[in-house]
């Protein structure tokens, strides 16, 4: 049973560029949440996708957008990258409803130069 997978593992971009991160949820899970974790900090909730719709959103600007596909996989897009966007981006999958056990993927380390 495959767990949560994310790609790529690492990414280096320059300011102003755009980036797309990908996540495949655990088998049987239909909900995906995205988090940003800066060094030494706790993960910050970006948004959650369920049934291909953004269900909830944290305090992140519109530069952060996402998408969920019919197979429940998800993408996180960040436009006009800033140095402060450098972080570990975590995807978590869960099975619908209220937040239940979240299974995290290994994350994508984004560095913005």
């Amino acid at each position, binding site marked *: 049973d495959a767990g949560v997978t994310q790609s790529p593992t690492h990414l280096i971009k320059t300011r102003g560029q755009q980036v797309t991160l990908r996540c495949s949820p655990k088998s049987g899970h239909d909900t995906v*949440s995205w*988090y940003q974790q800066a060094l030494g*900090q*706790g*993960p*910050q*909730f970006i948004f*959650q996708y369920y049934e291909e719709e953004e*269900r*909830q959103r*944290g305090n992140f600007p519109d530069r952060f957008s996402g998408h969920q596909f019919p197979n429940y996989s998800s993408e996180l897009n960040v436009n006009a990258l800033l140095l402060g966007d450098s972080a570990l981006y*975590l995807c978590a999958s869960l099975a619908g409803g*209220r*937040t*239940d*056990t*979240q*299974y*995290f*993927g*290994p*994350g994508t380390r984004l560095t913005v130069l």
Partner: protein
Amino acid sequence: QQPVQSPQAVILREGEDAVINCSSSKALYSVHWYRQKHGEAPVFLMILLKGGEQKGHDKISASFNEKKQQSSLYLTASQLSYSGTYFCGTEEDNFNKFYFGSGTKLNVKP
């Protein structure tokens, strides 16, 4: 709203006990506890739901006081493998927004 965790860091000897606290100013639906080792993703430990309860497995347990919106994680007879950063995560009653605390760094020494 981000929950408040305390202490920020703990150093223990193997076999000692520790308590990590998490509190919120908002009405909570659930409290989750995670452990994250350096360079790895957070790993789920347990979830406590509204209604106030206590859970545990092995030597790690947690409680949730719904009236005070506080949760505590209890680590008993700590092992070297317990080292890492512990995060509480909270889901408020307003459905699906999930917030992590700033973490408690636990270092268990031989």
